[in-house]
């Protein structure tokens, strides 16, 4: 039985331990504002959709990097797996968007589960190399198995309308629908991650991030926890990939590229790791800056992302978001 959330009668300790569970007014405003932005700027829906999907991808990385403190520089492996799963299904006549998302989750989670044990030993540098290696291997497997993936030519597929009649295509209200669909998926997965963060499991992840030795000395089976959250993180990335394939109706080998893994880490660091909103904010900033600056200097826009990173780190972004993070 969970105690009722009557804030006045709650002891300070209970209030403190439950504070992550409570939705703040500013959060509710944030999510409502996202709906508002999509509805108000249908012409920018494709860009917003890209931000939302990148935000989901960065959220998936936050589960493992921010919450658990395990670094990964190969998260594109799972994004790519999800994207190709949805695309291959659609190319073979199973174009239902929800089916695609559900189907994309499984191989990503499975590969996450199988490769997670590689992350349990060694130092961070070793983990960076291993995660990068897995992404490289999957990318080349997709390249080689042309019969399945279309290889370098990409894959031709059509995604069916959502619930049979809501088009997610690039015509008319399609992009707006696609962005709203991405927003709903992002919100559901975010709310689940948020709930997880407030649970004993979530607190144990933060504990093993803060001090793995002590977490073990309190009885936490740290290896199993890491494997579990890595598989979940992989599943999230897989869903992000599938969402990307379904709403852009494009998939190519570059989903596995190293720069995808690096970009998503930059987004998370821009927004701040460990508090779940960081990925969404970072993705919006990253893609927003790219959109604005590349209109002006298409080839050198990353100069400004680089500049921003340097300024953020030197100015101590921690202080800007600290108020909201605890």
């Amino acid at each position, binding site marked *: *039985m*969970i*105690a009722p959330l009557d804030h006045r009668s709650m*002891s*300070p*300790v*209970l209030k*403190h*331990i*439950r504070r*992550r*569970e409570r939705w703040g007014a500013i959060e509710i405003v944030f999510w409502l504002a996202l709906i508002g932005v999509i509805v108000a700027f249908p012409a920018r829906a494709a860009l917003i959709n890209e931000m939302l999907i990148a935000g989901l991808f960065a959220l998936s990385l936050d589960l493992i990097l921010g919450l658990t403190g395990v670094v990964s520089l190969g998260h594109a492996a799972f994004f790519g797996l999800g994207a190709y799963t949805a695309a291959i299904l659609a190319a073979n006549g199973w174009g239902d968007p929800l089916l695609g998302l559900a189907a994309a989750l499984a191989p990503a989670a499975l590969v996450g589960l199988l490769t997670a044990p590689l992350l349990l030993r060694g130092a961070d540098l070793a983990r960076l190399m291993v995660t990068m290696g897995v992404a490289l291997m999957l990318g080349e497997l997709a390249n080689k198995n042309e019969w399945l993936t279309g290889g370098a030519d990409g894959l031709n597929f059509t995604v069916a309308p959502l619930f049979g009649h809501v088009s997610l295509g690039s015509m008319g209200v399609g992009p707006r629908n696609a962005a709203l669909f991405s927003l709903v998926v992002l919100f559901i997965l975010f709310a689940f991650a948020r*709930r*997880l963060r*407030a*649970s*004993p*499991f*979530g*607190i*144990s992840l*933060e*504990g093993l991030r*803060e*001090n793995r*030795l*002590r*977490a*073990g*000395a*309190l*009885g*936490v*089976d*740290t290896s*199993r*926890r890491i494997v*579990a959250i890595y598989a979940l993180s992989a599943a999230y990335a897989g869903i992000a990939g599938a969402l990307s394939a379904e709403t852009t109706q494009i998939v190519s080998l570059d989903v596995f590229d190293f720069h995808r893994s690096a970009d998503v880490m930059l987004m998370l660091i821009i927004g701040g790791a460990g508090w779940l909103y960081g990925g969404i904010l970072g993705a919006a900033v990253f893609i927003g800056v790219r959109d604005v600056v590349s209109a002006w200097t298409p080839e050198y826009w990353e100069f400004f992302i680089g500049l921003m990173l340097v300024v953020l780190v030197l100015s101590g972004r921690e202080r800007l978001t600290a108020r909201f993070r605890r």
Partner: protein
Amino acid sequence: MTVPALEARGLIRRFGGLTATDNVSFSLAPGARQALIGPNGAGKTTLINLLTGVLKPSEGAVLLEGEDITNLSASARVRRGLARTFQINQLFPDLSPTESLGLAISERQGRGADFWRPAGKPEVVAEIEDLLDRFGLTDVYDQPTRSLPYGKQRLLEIALALACRPRVLLLDEPAAGVPEEERHDILAALAQLPADVAILLIEHDMDLVFTFATRLSVLVAGRLLCEGTPEEIANDERVKAVYLGEDAHG
């Protein structure tokens, strides 16, 4: 004859050519207040690591309440009731004392993998409040651990181990680095540890050892030199020789 709470049987640990733990056997009665003393380099830390499962012994066995736990991992031993504190604080800098204790209690209850229900069941909260109160942490319950004064961190170190509700508790120099004026807080905390928990105190501070322990074991160069009541140990010529020898150098 009751089953010992914790028993070491012929523990040997070699590091290359060095034998850090040399055929150590001892037992800890239920509810014991025992201390393990010995000069620097005697192998106290290695012995703790063997007992808690951080290291595997080259030979010998560790038994917890009669059950062989030699091949269990450190975290599995904790779940069976063998908890420890650390000489150098091993805390969760970004978590509050409340969250840290909640984490320990959830693990003990086997709810640590519950990802769905929020942390903070009423009985867990009651237990956290009780531990905060007993260890003088109530005023800092919501502060990040890294911002706590050192003495409070030391108390949290013990409170966390106790939150595991151990049958056996190993205290590794609980007063290490605590300034003189805060020592009595540690002593008071040690004095009110549950009577039914067997405690092995590893300590340098002789005042603390003689206040707390009713039985002493002396470890020298990886071997148990002798064992007895505080009076017997204080009057033992061999122990005097070891400690006088150390004093002469130090």
